[in-house]
């Protein structure tokens, strides 16, 4: 029993040395959604708090965010998230694709599919009230990138 505990401890420490890429950059992207779209400060804050951790090139990591195995799980979410929508490179999408991404954002937010439940457990500050969601959707519906 004691032996098993020691093995788990050693493994637990050991995996901390396996590198995990960090989703952070100093560079402010010129193609960034919030840099290029006009939005009020509350809207900007909402999008940043609720979306940017997984949908941009800058994740604000929680304290456990660099601890394996959580770091791997996080990395997987970020990879999948950015693959689907990356706010940091939003202007690199064609106008048609931008409109599609916005359509999809509206649908995901109003259906309550985004932000992910798992994400909200750990980030209660990312949870939007019904009114906030309505404001955000109203803002998104007015965007019509060409």
């Amino acid at each position, binding site marked *: 029993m004691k032996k098993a505990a020691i093995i788990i401890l050693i493994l637990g420490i050991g995996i901390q040395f396996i590198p995990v890429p960090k989703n952070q950059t100093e560079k402010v992207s010129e193609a960034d959604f919030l840099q290029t779209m006009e939005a009020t400060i509350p809207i900007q804050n909402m999008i940043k708090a609720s979306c940017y951790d997984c949908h941009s090139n800058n994740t604000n990591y929680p304290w456990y965010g660099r601890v394996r195995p959580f770091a791997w799980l996080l990395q997987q979410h970020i990879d999948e998230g950015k693959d689907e929508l990356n706010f940091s490179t939003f202007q690199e999408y064609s106008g048609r*694709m931008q409109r*599609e991404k916005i359509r999809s954002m509206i649908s995901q937010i109003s259906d309550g599919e985004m932000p992910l439940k798992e994400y909200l457990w750990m980030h209660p500050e990312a949870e939007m009230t019904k009114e906030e969601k309505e404001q955000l959707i109203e803002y998104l519906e007015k965007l019509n990138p060409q």
Partner: protein
Amino acid sequence: MKTTLLTIGLALTIISCNNSKTEKRAAETTNETTAKAENTAASDQEGGKAITPIIDAYLAVKNALVNDNQEEAAKSGATLATALASLDISQFDVDKQTELQEIVEVAKNHGEHISKSEIEHQREHFEAMSQDIKDLTAIVGTDRTLYHQYCPMYNDNKGGMWLSTSEEIKNPLFGAKMMKCGKVQEIISL
């Protein structure tokens, strides 16, 4: 666009000229123009043909959704993504290629989503994609008559559209829940 119409017009004139032997000489003198015009006509025809696998797969997704068949829709969604990826864009007007590229990219993305989601999500992507496919036919042409149909009740009464080969309404956005919702808004002819 104007030049395309002009060349097609020329091609048609010349074809009818060829039919009447008395005017054959006139046709011969404009040999060079004829060759050019025929090329344009041929590539337009090819455009119509090039879109066949895309429309086939699109309609297969639509029919699967009419029948509330998630699995079949997923399969056809994947086929559609492949068909879109294999469209050779270089055969069309240079000034239309960027737009074509964008339409194909977005529609392909919808096809991929349809291939791996549950049915309500499939319907959502299908509805959004229908406009892209319609825009595609506006550039590339169609190989069959399509009916642009619209149901005002879809998406909390925001409405939704799709394309069908039949005038009769069979709603792919609701399936059996509301099979008859919709009306023909436009006919896209050959």
